[in-house]
């Protein structure tokens, strides 16, 4: 049977049979890198057209419908336009930081793909501190935003970057505590262990109400961390033109844009892995016939289905809710989300110690 893990194993076998182990490893790394870049390009195209269609339908509009069948090639055309545009560097900018910032944003997004399990036994790097690695590396993205904002030498960019910094630093806390709830229940930081623990049911269903609360807090916090509406103060169009990427154009702008969408994909993939069982099919207790049918659906379809469902939910948020003011944003985090998630973590710990979960 064809599956992503089979294909990967076959390539590994073939390479090891034909060249020395060192070269085989190098070639595998190159293949993985190309695959990641390919995934990025595909995600950028798919998520942009998805966002535009979802926003249009929510606002009772038609959305792009001219380029290609049903407008599906619109984002491809836009990407081509961005590729051929001139990448301006403003005269007063800090040239080095200005040009490096988009690549930092992109590299952070790439690093975050490493521990994500896309399908059964299909993972770039199953390190034993996967969850810690994700929360540590995802914090670096704020540096790229601060770099871009500072180097642009522009008041809007700097304000946007500072807001973004305050926002990511605050919301990292409640996102971390929500993730900890699952770590406490599983007893492991390794992504594959967390997925394995959900074989007989996803944590969202097994962990009672505290896990549902943790899930809601996680979704709110990652929406804020990815700087999307209703938390898009960092690039509030009406106040700051475009926030930290005001001065960027052409491909450098496209990299920031792509990194934003890839970050949305990554946080949704993490949410799907922690709370919805990653690639694990939907199983109900002892219903063997039902579970068999669910197993028949490929694991990659499960993973991408769950991830895109969460992406849709976050898009739904964006096109429904009005933007928060900066004081409301910090109130929400420090007066509501953080106390609730701390209390919630205590409850989850109690559940884990007493073994009350299913």
């Amino acid at each position, binding site marked *: 049977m064809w599956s992503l893990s089979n294909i990967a194993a076959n390539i590994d076998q073939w390479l090891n049979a034909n060249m020395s182990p060192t070269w085989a490893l190098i070639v595998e790394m190159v293949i993985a890198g190309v695959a990641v870049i390919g995934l990025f390009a595909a995600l950028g195209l798919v998520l942009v057209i998805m966002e535009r269609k979802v926003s249009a*339908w929510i606002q009772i509009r*038609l959305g792009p419908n001219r380029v290609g069948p049903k407008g599906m090639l619109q984002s491809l055309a836009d990407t081509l336009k961005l590729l051929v545009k001139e990448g301006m560097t403003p005269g007063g900018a800090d040239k080095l930081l200005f040009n490096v910032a988009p690549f930092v944003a992109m590299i952070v997004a790439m690093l975050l793909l490493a521990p994500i399990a896309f399908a059964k036994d299909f993972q770039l790097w199953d390190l034993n501190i996967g969850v810690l690695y994700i929360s540590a590396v995802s914090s670096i993205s704020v540096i790229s935003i601060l770099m871009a904002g500072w180097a642009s030498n522009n008041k809007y960019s700097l304000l946007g970057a500072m807001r973004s910094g305050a926002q990511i630093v605050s919301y990292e806390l409640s996102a971390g505590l929500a993730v900890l709830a699952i770590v406490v229940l599983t007893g492991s930081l390794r992504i594959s262990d967390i997925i394995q623990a959900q074989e007989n049911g996803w944590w969202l269903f097994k962990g009672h109400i505290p896990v549902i609360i943790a899930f809601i807090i996680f979704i709110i916090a990652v929406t804020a961390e990815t700087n999307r509406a209703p938390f898009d103060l960092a690039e509030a169009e009406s106040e700051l033109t475009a926030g930290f990427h005001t001065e960027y154009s052409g491909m450098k702008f496209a990299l920031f844009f792509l990194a934003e969408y890839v970050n949305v994909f990554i946080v949704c993939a993490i949410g799907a892995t922690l709370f919805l069982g990653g690639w694990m099919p939907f199983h109900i207790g002892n219903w063997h016939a039902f579970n068999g049918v669910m197993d028949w659906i490929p694991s990659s379809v499960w993973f991408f289905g769950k991830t895109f469902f969460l992406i849709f939910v976050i898009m*739904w948020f964006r096109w*429904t809710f009005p933007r928060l003011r900066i004081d409301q944003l910090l109130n929400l985090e420090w007066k*509501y989300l953080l106390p609730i998630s701390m209390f919630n973590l205590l409850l989850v710990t109690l559940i884990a110690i007493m073994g009350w979960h299913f």
Partner: protein
Amino acid sequence: MEDEAMFLKQYIQDIWGAIKSLATGMKRTGYYFTHHKEIITQQYPDNRDTLVLPERFKGEVVMIHDENNEHACTGCTACELACPNATIKIITKFDVDAETGKKKKAIDTFVYHLELCTMCNLCVEACPTDAIKMAQTFEHSVFDRSQLTKKLNKPGSKIRAGIE
């Protein structure tokens, strides 16, 4: 102790209220997302032949003429006075009644400057005899600005009998 209990109650109520109102909004947008028949976008040049305009759409002021080329305008200039930006100019004349020889005020030309009109509908509401109405034509582009100054009463038309 009392205060703390009140605070906690208020705190939980706030959260509950917030979740409820956010869910209400998401329900509405979710309804629009799944019901594509609600889409209001008109793909205009493509559906030019089958275009259906909303009832309240206003394109320009026209004067109503019946089959005998008669209108209901008495030349009272109520519309001219009601117009906020001098879109309408009414030029009157004196008709001499053939039988009695009395002079009677009547309309000569109803000048309408489409380029000044904001489609506010105040002239139509001001008209005591319902002589003018808003039409739904909207393709008003012309190459010469003077073509936008229109004469609303048709040549040779006269006031319908019995309208004072």
